[in-house]
């Protein structure tokens, strides 16, 4: 089980092209486990009609910051 966690942790870092200093790996892995424990509430099933809060808006007037109208 501990080996699975180690390999999952290493795989996520590798997939994202990230490194963690060796002396902080244990602390980071522990933090990730605590975070994923909190996020278990997101496994609860939701109804089809429960749509995400972040839905598209069409900002026809939008311009990048720094572009003067």
């Amino acid at each position, binding site marked *: 089980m501990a080996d699975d966690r180690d390999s999952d942790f290493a795989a996520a870092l590798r997939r*994202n092209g*990230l490194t963690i200093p060796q002396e902080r790996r244990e602390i*980071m892995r522990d933090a990730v486990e605590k975070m994923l424990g909190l*996020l278990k509430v*997101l496994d609860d099933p939701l109804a089809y009609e429960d*749509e*995400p*809060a972040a839905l598209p*808006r069409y900002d026809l007037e939008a311009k990048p910051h720094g572009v003067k109208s």
Partner: protein
Amino acid sequence: MSAAPLPTLAEAGRQIAAGDLSPVALTEAALARAAALQPKLDAFIEITAERARAAAHRAEKEIAGGRRRGKLHGIPYGLKDIYDAAGLRTTAHSRLLLDNIATVDAETTARLEAAGMILIGKLATHEFATGGPAFDLPFPPARNPWNTAHFTGGSSSGSGAAVAAGIVSLAMGSDTGGSIRLPAAYCGTVGLKPTYGRVSRRGVAPLCYSLDTTGPLTWTVEDAALSLQVLAGYDPRDPGSADVPVPDYTAALRDGIKGVRVGYCRAFSADGEVGAEQSAALDQAAQTLAKLGSEVSEVALPPNTQFQACARTISHSESFAIHHKDLQERPELYARVTRERLTLGAFISARQYVQAQRLRRILTRKVDALFETCDVLLTAVIPGPAPVLEETDDGPWRKQQPLASVFNVTGHPCMAQPCGFAVDGLPLSAQFVGRHFDEATLLRVGHAYEQEADWIRKRPALATL
């Protein structure tokens, strides 16, 4: 240095209008306080003295010539150093942006400048509004004016310190998970997080697009109302901005709160592991509101764990997306704590992000339902007084259960303001929450409570030297 803290925005505005106060003298007093207190507080990343003096002379000339722009004309303010001000650096308290000179004002900066306010400096923050307090950055963390050994709260740390110390009466903050309200609470000031979309975020370094909110830290609720009057309004160039009319925020400020229905989220304090002193102070605040004629009843928020799962998933995912490239290519430039907190986003799946956004909508509806029988909510925003700075959590995962991000998840406007003091002399804080875009009622309740409780008379000793 001036012996007294700067006057409130309202008082300074009245004195300037009457010709009893000079914007030049007021700005010099602010600059003198900023310089004198900087060695103790580290509130500023940059003090913009020459720019401030030039602006103060312009304001004085305009006002003397009968061209007073409004109630805030000629009054100094500060910006958290994630806000752009044309010609000045925006560092976000980070090595990554040490040479980042803004070419255009943030929309909020532009509104404050158009109102005639005078920028005296850029204020300390947690790195990119998330990593801190940290001691391995080019600038030190800000210190709490009530006790410099203690945490200011964050991430608008310099903003809280500067307002509490009476250097400025308005400092801008940003709030993704409590970053306006936490420094306000720990430093004993007012901190207003407006409704998501009420105040533009354009030109402010992002942390999490769907949770970021900008707003003011002030000494009084009236000053928060005066600030919001200038700041609020639709910005078509901010994709999160809402096209909703802006009311007069001071019109009903003194109408009292007789008959106002206050929902006291008392059980949330136990759910959020709030300490005995802070809980007792909230109970006392509820009694004060009842004494003023409001109808106080207890109401229940959904479990904090649901809000935290939402907030953490969304915030870590979006901030990781923003910083991914720099985390890959130059991670050593971040503070350790920033790098680690941002890296947590690498471990969240797309499924979890979408589920969090779905749960967010459900939680927002549940909180909205409370407003069918209440006009405002009263809740905890901090578990107790500010911890010692060096003992503040600096790991990737925070040990203390956050309370403030509940209303970032739902987008409701909310305001932290003082509600007493702990035995160690540090401030305690209450949070009022309003319906979406009903900041006016929130401010009215906050003002009535503030006037009755009168905590604002007490300033940190350091500020009255």
